[in-house]
């Protein structure tokens, strides 16, 4: 079998460091292997701790992760379960969480 395809993942807010990530690897694992420390907890997509923003590119994530619809639409992905499908640019860490949370009483109900 051919090796899984590899894509370039650039971490915009860590000095633009760029790593080769295979489609069978998670962005988190490769960042950690290269000494980029990211927030992490459950490592299975269940807790949102590792959320970051996908600035460009495409990733594959399992269904049923802890992100809700609004958060996904705002461009958030979970680094612990995100596998690149193309070259990607991401923002990581708590600094990227500006639009992740909102006070539900302060926004109009649809």
């Amino acid at each position: 079998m051919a090796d899984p395809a590899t894509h370039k993942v650039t971490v915009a807010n860590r000095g633009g460091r760029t790593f080769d990530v295979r489609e069978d690897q998670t962005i988190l694992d490769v960042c950690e292997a290269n000494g980029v420390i990211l927030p992490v907890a459950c490592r299975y997509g269940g807790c949102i701790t590792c959320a970051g923003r996908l600035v460009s590119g495409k990733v594959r994530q399992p269904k049923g992760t802890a992100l809700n619809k609004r958060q996904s639409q705002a461009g958030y992905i979970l680094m612990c379960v995100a596998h690149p499908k193309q070259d990607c640019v991401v923002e990581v860490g708590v600094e990227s969480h500006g639009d992740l949370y909102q006070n539900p009483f302060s926004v109009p109900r649809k």
Partner: protein
Amino acid sequence: MADGNGKACCGPGYASPAEAITADREKLLYTVALYVGTGVEKPDYLATVDVDPDSPTYSSVIARTEMQQIGDELHHSGWNACSSCHDDASKSRRFLLMPGVRSSNINVIDTSDATNPSVHKVVSGDDIKAKTNLSGPHTVHCLGADIIISMLGDADGNGPGGFLHLNENFEIVGRWENDNAGMNYNYDFWYQPRHNMMVSSEWAAPNTFMPGFDLDDVAAGKYGQSVHFWDFNGKTISKSFDLGAEGMIPLEVRGLHDPTSNHGYFAATLSSNVFHWWKDDNGEIQLEKVIDIPTIDVEGFPVPMPSLITDILISMDDKYLYFANWLHGDLRQYDITDRSNPKMTGQVWLGGMLGKAPEVNGIKVQGAPQMIQLSLDGKRLYVTTSLFSSWDNQFYPDMKDKGAQMYLVDCDVENGGMTINPDFVVDFGKEPNGPSRCHEMRYPGGDVTSDIWI
């Protein structure tokens, strides 16, 4: 240092609630302190706080016990033994179990050195998931030699969860309950074997509450609104109450300390109501709403804001009920001598979204009253301001950069009343590794939410 072992002949804790009230004043207090969701990539830790006013380091963190890995989200904790084993001299209150809600790890902390506890063992969350299909550990209670822990989800973070059973060596026995039929979700529990009773409450599945609080999830029925009364010996639910709109998100469950009583209280957090339960003369469980905190229309907010009652407890003499309104920002004291008609006797404001007390004791409050712990004699109520990292970041986003705080409220146990102590504040914004969030508190000698008399 008083370790809570009243007499040398006996096991842990105190012979009765009345004896506990007369114990030595607490000198140390433990609180969990978190780095989850702060941007500091360090493990959560247990902070030892000096609460002895005669000590030169009074009102400060004097030791920190770091967990072994990052990302636990320490939350609640419980002892390996409490006053329920007071008659057993072979038992001691030595190990504090501190679950990580996110990692599902259970950190077992050895408090033999009360000031400088150490990590004794970590029960791996992966093992728990593999052996029991449970995750999201929450409330810990000892049960004679063994320990049970409420678990909020299955291994994939879906409801309803169940109960994890550990033996006294902290090995996984399996699931405690024989059947969880009737449970939609899980959260806190309290038990009283004398009445063959256990009461459990409902937050939500981890996959729902982890990303933050969302009213669409409430509308979709993804948050709990039921409480369950268990046949404790049979380990099955004997009666569930669907509380409807008045009982959204029932959290902390507190029975009266007097073991002959079968009364207790819990708060429905989102509906911000307090309920009283009791077993009537026919052995039937009765429930009534006894306190209702109205929502407040906040300027610029399209949705009326509930007070969000997040923690509630009962004084050791069963006379006062205390609770925290985490969004409105107040702490309240009610006289519950008349069980069905609580009377408000005290109130203080600390932080909160109404802006009533933004700064207290010279420090800008991040968050609002949240976890509370009362001294055994009922006179000192300690309070911390962080709820849960993703919910903190939603409602009080500055806390991640400025840390949470711990305050002390003096309580008048004769006439009722509360005042914020002007000489005590611990600002977790000034921790050496960066600002952290302080949450649940425990005293080495046991406290009003740890011990059950059987």
